[in-house]
């Protein structure tokens, strides 16, 4: 009799899995065998393809190294960020992972002031003579100036007419380390602990988190609850400016800090054989210093629109943030669609919606493409203003940071994945991210109405990485 290899049907495939599980239960094997093999003449070995890779992670070490190249148009921020990640998964399902990040930033970032038809000059502190070094916020195009009368040494930079004021001295290096450990109490219960630390010249952040996951309904439903505590220290190189005072070259006040506490509750649910859903609710409370110490807001003449002075911004010291996130993975034949939505609202009155879609399309057994699109829209914080009008009473809070304004952002990207061996993948992702927003506001005085006040970014990124699992 000829024994030919055939594709197994639903019942025989399912029966194979159930039988494998029976012998795990009765013979104490560490792990159930995945897909069953057809018998007799064909000794197949499932090498795993890009679409059907279902190998277990137990008893493996996963490494993942990648670099991000990020560049904003218009000479703005440029960043290179290599990341190395290592994850150990024990035979019992416990995991330990380590991630190290290095972030190098250069370029220019908007300082918050409005553009104007005449040259504008901005004054910042500088280092005393003999202590020159690359600092955040006050080098690059600045010139050192001695202020007549006081003899103080300050740095000044000038912005050409009609240009969006950018602080060109933006340069920083950031190092971050993340550690995470998780333990499986039983096949349905997992606890996770995480520790993070990040350090750059003028900012430090430390956080600890823990979460508990419980499976129900034969691992079809997973409930997760987690808490996170973060402590951030802001130590701007020349000190923390007094909010809503005039921008100047004086050395400023001591560092400030903030505390963040957040809670996340989520459910992951297998909806059907090909649809996985995740629903999360997050609430967080920030308390403490949340200003950007380098950002200013222009106070302009209410008739002409000419800038009269620049004030350091001020944001409330407390912020309550909530978000609801819905994520879906849907398998359609060999492709996988990733669809997600997020609604966000906070006590600063920033409201946003995010919608993302990505479609992973295998081209061959070792190559896939994944185009993606993201749509984002946010409303402005209650204290956001492009500028303040001179002669009006000062508000308690004011910020012209475009990141708190009203804008829409679209990302379009393409990822390519190359399966290098059974356990390795080389991936590259190219993206274009563009923010659009109102270039003016109704009632902008004088010639200010002719300026483009929107300071949103248009950035291109390339992310390249290689991941490999050692078994």
């Amino acid at each position, binding site marked *: *009799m000829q*024994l*030919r290899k*055939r*594709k*197994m*049907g*639903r*019942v*025989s495939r*399912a*029966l*194979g899995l*159930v*039988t494998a599980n*029976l*012998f795990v*239960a*009765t*013979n104490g094997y560490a792990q159930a065998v995945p897909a*069953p*093999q*057809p*018998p*007799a*003449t064909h*000794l197949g070995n499932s090498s795993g393809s890009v679409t059907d890779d279902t190998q277990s992670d137990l008893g493996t070490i996963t490494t993942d190294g990648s670099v991000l190249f990020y560049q904003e148009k218009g000479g703005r921020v440029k960043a290179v960020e290599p990341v190395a990640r290592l994850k150990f998964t024990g035979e019992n399902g416990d995991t330990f992972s380590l991630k190290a990040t290095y972030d190098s930033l250069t370029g220019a970032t908007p300082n918050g002031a409005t553009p104007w038809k005449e040259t504008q000059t901005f004054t910042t502190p500088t280092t005393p003579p003999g202590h020159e070094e690359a600092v955040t916020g006050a080098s690059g195009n600045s010139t050192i100036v001695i202020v007549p009368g006081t003899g103080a040494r300050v740095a000044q930079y000038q912005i050409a007419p009609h240009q969006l004021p950018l602080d060109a001295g933006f340069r920083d290096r950031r190092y971050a380390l993340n550690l995470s450990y998780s333990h499986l109490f039983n096949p349905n219960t997992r606890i996770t602990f995480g520790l993070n630390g990040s350090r750059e010249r003028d900012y430090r952040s430390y956080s600890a988190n823990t979460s508990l996951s419980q499976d129900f309904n034969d691992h079809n439903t997973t409930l997760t609850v987690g808490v996170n505590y973060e402590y951030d220290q802001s130590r701007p190189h020349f000190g923390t400016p007094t909010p809503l005072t005039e921008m100047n070259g004086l050395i400023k006040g001591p560092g400030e800090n903030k505390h963040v506490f957040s809670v996340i509750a989520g459910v992951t649910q297998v909806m059907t054989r090909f649809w996985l859903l995740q629903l999360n609710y997050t609430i967080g409370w920030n308390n403490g210093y949340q200003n950007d110490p380098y950002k200013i807001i222009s106070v302009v003449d209410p008739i002409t629109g000419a800038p009269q002075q620049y004030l350091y911004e001020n944001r409330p010291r407390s912020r309550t943030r909530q978000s609801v996130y819905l994520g879906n993975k849907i398998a359609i034949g060999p492709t996988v669609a990733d669809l997600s939505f997020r609604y966000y609202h906070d006590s600063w009155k920033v409201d946003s919606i995010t919608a993302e879609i990505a479609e992973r399309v295998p081209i061959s057994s070792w190559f896939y493409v994944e185009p993606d699109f993201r749509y984002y829209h946010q409303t402005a914080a209650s204290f956001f203003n492009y500028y303040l009008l001179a002669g009006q009473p000062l508000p308690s809070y004011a910020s012209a940071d475009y990141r708190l304004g009203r804008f829409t952002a679209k990302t379009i990207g393409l990822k390519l994945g190359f399966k290098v061996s059974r356990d390795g993948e080389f991936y590259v992702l190219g993206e274009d991210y563009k923010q659009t927003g109102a270039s003016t506001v109704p009632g902008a005085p004088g010639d200010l109405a002719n300026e483009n006040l929107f300071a949103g970014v248009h950035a291109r990124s390339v992310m390249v990485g290689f991941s490999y699992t050692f078994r």
Partner: protein
Amino acid sequence: MTSGVEMQRHRFSAMASPCEVQVDSRDPLLAAHLGGIAEAEAKRIEVKYSRYRDDSVTTTINTSGGKPVVLDDETAALLDYADSCFDLSKGLFDVTSGVLRRIWRFDGSDNVPTKQQVAEILPFIGWKKVAWRRPELILPEGMEIDFGGLGKEYAVDSALLKITQESSVPVLVNFGGDLRVSAPRSGNRRWRVAIESVDEDGVSTARLELATGALTTSGDARRFLLKDGVRYSHILDPRNGWPVKHAPRSVTVAAPTCMEAGVMSTLAMLQGKKAEAFLRREGIQGWIVR
């Protein structure tokens, strides 16, 4: 069958069947040791699950009188398996169907039960009526659990697993026609197996070559009832208590494990005239005799 100095055999009797373990090795001590492992496992399972023994788990369950019984891990795993088979086969594979033997006796006579008799026994059949919440089983009074449909195949797989944990020498474990091989013979040769089918026309033999996997054969042409010119096969549909029409005389199935082969050959038989289509659809290698 090939024989020779390289092939050692260990024969014994268990589960009311002739059993044999073939060991591809020149070492008679190793062969005896591995054969002994299989024999011990076969006898252990027989003692534990035989319907005919007063001290078996099966008898304990079937005499529980509707009260809860706490089961050990192995029996619990087998019941979970039976539960999955019931779901997968949409009720065709049912370990509570053994009570049908009280009214159906396939001795070639014309003693076909009446509709009334079948209707009266149906309430005592149905896996759904059993309350199985691991590790506790509640079997309603009058119902029976029968591991007969799984026992021999489970014994083959279990014995083979125990042997392969001891030695990587290729073996063939055969308990009364349900067999499985652990690996191809040395030199990448295949095992040769003969399948005999007995029907009114005599004995027909097929020869199969097996490299890995299991083979089981369902069916026995001699068990039937004949009344008013209608032949009732001994394959009973647990959903209605009557024999399946146009069931094949025998079905031989090849599958990775003996249990899968056993379940699939039983299910194929229960498909009646659609047995061939069922095996084709499932991509299962099989041989059907009608």
